[in-house]
């Protein structure tokens, strides 16, 4: 930073800035980079690679479940000993696949890949900052995530297989290596990887919060922040409060596994031996785990909802309906997210009174969620909708969010959860509402901000085809899965042949598997489109979606520091689309009211007076302050 220290004029700054950039070596520029945009891309690419692995796993176990008679010998070159000589999948490895699919998708794809990518990329660009508050911590955050990824990836190649107790890794199964091969070295690596992952999330989260609070540009008050930034801020707060609890539960589990403590273990007789541990409680782990685990659902979902708000408003050419209600409902969801965790534990033997309390709190979440759903719909109403791929995925998200969220009202009802707990009904529910909906948010974000990331456009038609195949595929997979759940099929079963009551729906399971394979194949359209467009895509114009937010005022490919010259000041909210009287159907945030007298409302005319004040402020340009 010394090269740019103390520079005063914008012009000089830009020149020096470019000079500074060229001096960076390859390592500084692409590997150990402190630029938020590069870190965002690192998160995105890593996330995509993990998604390919995670979804491939789901296809393998869907083949096992839906086409149980198929001969899997063709997978032998990849899976080796996990496929028996008869071409059957090993039951232990089936559990490992289920576990790793969950872990990878929840943490590495939808937490790191979604929040990591877009919080990093959009926070500085949309609030008008040169970079994150601490570029170094931000870099560390990615590399801790990378380390976590390497460890988790390595665990896939262990002789005994990776962790296999379900992504929730309930002890005692996860604590006792003698209980399952996956609870040996695989679980050790899982725990180590998660510990590093949590460190990464905390470093990132502190940065997001600090940046949003401290580095907003002139005039960017909280009530002018785009909803994306609100969602990233709230998500980061959620993560900061809940991830340390997961770390503590992970540490206690490590103690139980390696140092002979009894936090989670009591009265256990296994493999012909009564263990000395007494006094621990497996339920304690579940409380600690779900204290993170439930907010985690919203850590995954809220950024997707934030992205959707932005994309829907832009492409409906309308202001988001109920901006304040949207913020209030996100805050409400975030608050409630911390006091509903035990709805995952209704049938664990927890005190039934506690169950009633958690049922009540859980069902309250439906109210702010409903508000969000209705607000999206009203935003579409009387819009002028452009079906960019980003917009299609956002509309799809609303549909999936509502369809999946409604069954949450069933599962949050403790009396109904007795029968449905740990059946495919739950699997269908959370895949729709948090899995697919968040993935759609990720897709919407990639399609929408790809031009800003790479200076090129992704192909629209391919994006639209990708959307329809994915959208239809997701519903084809998860609607039938509700039926399987209502019929009582338990989850995490290697096969359904052992019981009479699961001796049906063979064709339904086959249908689900084929639909899953279909959806999986559709993702290759996206992969091709994504990687092809990075290099060969059409060059992006300055503001391809004619959007209001600040990132589109930066150069098409922003350099380090994002804006050449002064950071733009902000005079209005980001949703002045189709304002009556305005020349264009959008007015970017950096246009003062004094320039748009034809479209100002009376109370906005009053704001013209304070524009001078806003202009004269210059608090937050990091590159201008002396160290």
């Amino acid at each position, binding site marked *: 930073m010394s090269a740019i220290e103390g520079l005063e004029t914008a012009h000089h700054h830009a020149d020096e800035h470019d000079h500074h950039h060229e001096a960076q070596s390859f390592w500084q520029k692409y590997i150990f980079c402190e630029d938020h945009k590069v870190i965002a891309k690192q998160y995105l690419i890593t996330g995509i690679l993990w998604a390919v692995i995670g979804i491939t796993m789901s296809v393998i176990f869907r083949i096992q479940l839906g086409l149980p008679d198929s001969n899997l010998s063709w997978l032998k070159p990849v899976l080796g000993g996990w496929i028996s000589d008869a071409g059957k999948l090993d039951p232990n490895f089936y*559990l490992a696949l289920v576990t790793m699919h969950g872990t990878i998708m929840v943490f590495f794809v939808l937490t790191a890949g979604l929040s990591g990518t877009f919080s990093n990329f959009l926070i500085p660009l949309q609030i008008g900052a040169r970079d994150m508050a601490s570029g170094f911590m931000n870099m560390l955050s990615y590399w801790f995530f990378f380390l976590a990824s390497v460890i988790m990836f390595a665990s896939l190649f262990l002789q005994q297989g990776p962790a296999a107790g379900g992504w929730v890794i309930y002890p005692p*199964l996860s604590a006792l290596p003698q*209980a*399952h091969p996956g609870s040996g070295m695989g679980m050790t690596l899982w725990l180590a990887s998660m510990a590093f992952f949590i460190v990464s999330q905390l470093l990132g989260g502190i940065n997001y919060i600090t940046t949003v609070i401290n580095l907003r540009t002139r005039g960017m008050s909280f009530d002018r922040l785009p909803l994306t930034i609100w969602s990233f801020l709230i998500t980061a707060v959620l993560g900061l409060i809940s991830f340390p609890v997961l770390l503590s539960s992970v540490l206690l589990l490590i103690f139980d596994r390696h140092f002979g403590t009894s936090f989670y273990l*009591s009265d256990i*007789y296994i493999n012909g031996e*009564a263990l000395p541990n*007494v006094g*621990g409680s*497996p*339920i304690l782990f579940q409380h600690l785990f779900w204290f993170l685990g439930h907010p985690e659902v919203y850590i995954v979902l809220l950024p997707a909802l934030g992205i959707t708000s932005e994309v829907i408003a832009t492409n409906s*050419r*309308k*202001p988001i309906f109920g901006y304040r209600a949207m913020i209030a409902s996100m805050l409400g969801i975030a608050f409630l997210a911390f006091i509903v965790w035990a709805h995952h534990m209704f049938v664990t*033997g927890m005190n039934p009174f506690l169950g009633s309390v958690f049922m*009540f709190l859980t*069902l*309250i979440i439906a109210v702010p969620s*409903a*508000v969000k*759903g209705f607000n999206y719909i009203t935003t*579409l*109403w*009387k819009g*002028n*909708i452009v*079906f960019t791929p980003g917009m*299609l995925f956002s*509309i799809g998200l609303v549909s999936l969010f*509502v*369809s999946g969220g409604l*069954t949450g*009202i*069933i599962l949050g*009802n403790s*009396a*109904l959860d007795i*029968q449905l707990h740990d059946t495919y009904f739950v699997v269908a529910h959370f895949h729709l509402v948090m899995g697919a909906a968040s993935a759609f948010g990720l897709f919407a974000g990639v399609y929408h901000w790809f031009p800003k990331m790479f200076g090129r456009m992704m*192909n*629209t*038609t391919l994006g639209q*085809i990708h959307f329809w195949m994915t959208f239809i595929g997701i*519903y084809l997979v998860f*609607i039938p899965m509700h039926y399987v759940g*209502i*019929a009582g099929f*338990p*989850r*995490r079963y*290697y096969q359904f042949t052992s019981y*009479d009551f699961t001796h049906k*729906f063979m064709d*339904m399971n086959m*249908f689900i598997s084929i639909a899953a394979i*279909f959806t999986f194949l559709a993702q290759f359209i996206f992969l091709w489109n994504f990687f092809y467009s990075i290099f060969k895509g*059409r060059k992006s114009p300055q503001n391809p979606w004619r959007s209001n937010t600040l990132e589109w005022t930066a150069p098409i490919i922003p350099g380090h520091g994002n804006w050449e010259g002064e950071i733009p000041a902000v005079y209005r909210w980001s949703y002045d*689309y*189709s*304002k*009556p009287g305005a020349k264009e159907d959008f007015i970017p945030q950096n246009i003062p009211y004094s320039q748009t007298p034809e479209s100002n409302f009376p109370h906005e005319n009053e704001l013209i007076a304070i524009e001078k004040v806003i202009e004269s402020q210059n608090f937050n340009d990091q590159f201008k302050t002396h160290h």
Partner: protein
Amino acid sequence: MYIIIALVALVFIVLTGVVISRLQGVLKSINKTDSDEVETSGNKVNGAMFIVILIGGAVSITWSYLHAREFFLPEASSIHGRRTDDLFWFSMGILTIPFILVNFLVFYFAWKYQHKKGHRATFYPENHKLELVWTIIPAIVMALLVFTGWKAWSDITAEAPRDAEVIEITGKQFNWIARYGGVDNNKLGDYNYKLIDAQNEVGIDLSDENSFDDFTNPSEMHIPVGRPVLLKIRARDVLHSVFIPHMRVKMDAVPGMPTKFWFVPDKTTADMRAETGNPKFDYEIACTEVCGQGHFSMKMRLIVDDEATYKKWVSEQATFLSTYPEYLAKVPENLKAKAMKYVPAEAATPAADSSATSAGGAGASSSLR
């Protein structure tokens, strides 16, 4: 079924074809200069697709539901089960309304308000009245669902009636073991996990006289029809979960923390065989908490008998002590006489003798472990 698969395959092939044909056009247009207008390629087609999906989705969901219905579980065989089932379908019925409404509006608006050249969207940033309405209506509906759910939940989880038939079920990798209070006193004896061994699978503590007539069964559980059954649930090694789908019963089995669940089964196995028309019908107990390799096959047969048959079955069971008379050695001296009653005569004598000669039975018990 194969028709559906063929259909899906066909859709996929057609879409692939579309992709390839579009791709060529796309590759040609890649270097086109960009205009200032918003790009709206394929807007009409995508708008129309929403209507296609709306209609297609409605038809397929209705059809698939009607098709799937016959494979759902038969009417619940327990009193609380029918209550939760009614509540489930009642809630699902209510939730179908917003499901249809929201998806209809999303898809319909997407189609109706698609981009038109020269048209401008309506600037409509808020309406507090409207927002209040759709905050309050869900809140009222939620209050209704919470109340009905809470009533059912508190009844189901209330203390079991005093006359309940108490049966212990213990989960282990990978089967269930049922233990009954016994042929005579019908009281479960104490247990201790440290007493578990190859024969004494649930750790029956023979220093408690209630345990003398206890008997266990690792493959079948019999319960009487028409009166409350209280399951005392334990786990030996890792978490398990007792799941009786036809009874709508589920409760985790936790090592170190006994749990319980009571219910009133009111259809015998014979009733169900008649009702389902399946002479081989059997109630089953499954495990729903992942517990390792054999998780998917932790099956126990559950037989619901009428009262007389159940009584008869219980009286015919061999107590633990009669199966393994050597455990007599673990019975404290002062209770030996009582315990002898449950030990077959020919086995009792040598066992009693050996323990009497060894020093207080301690030596014998350690050799048994």
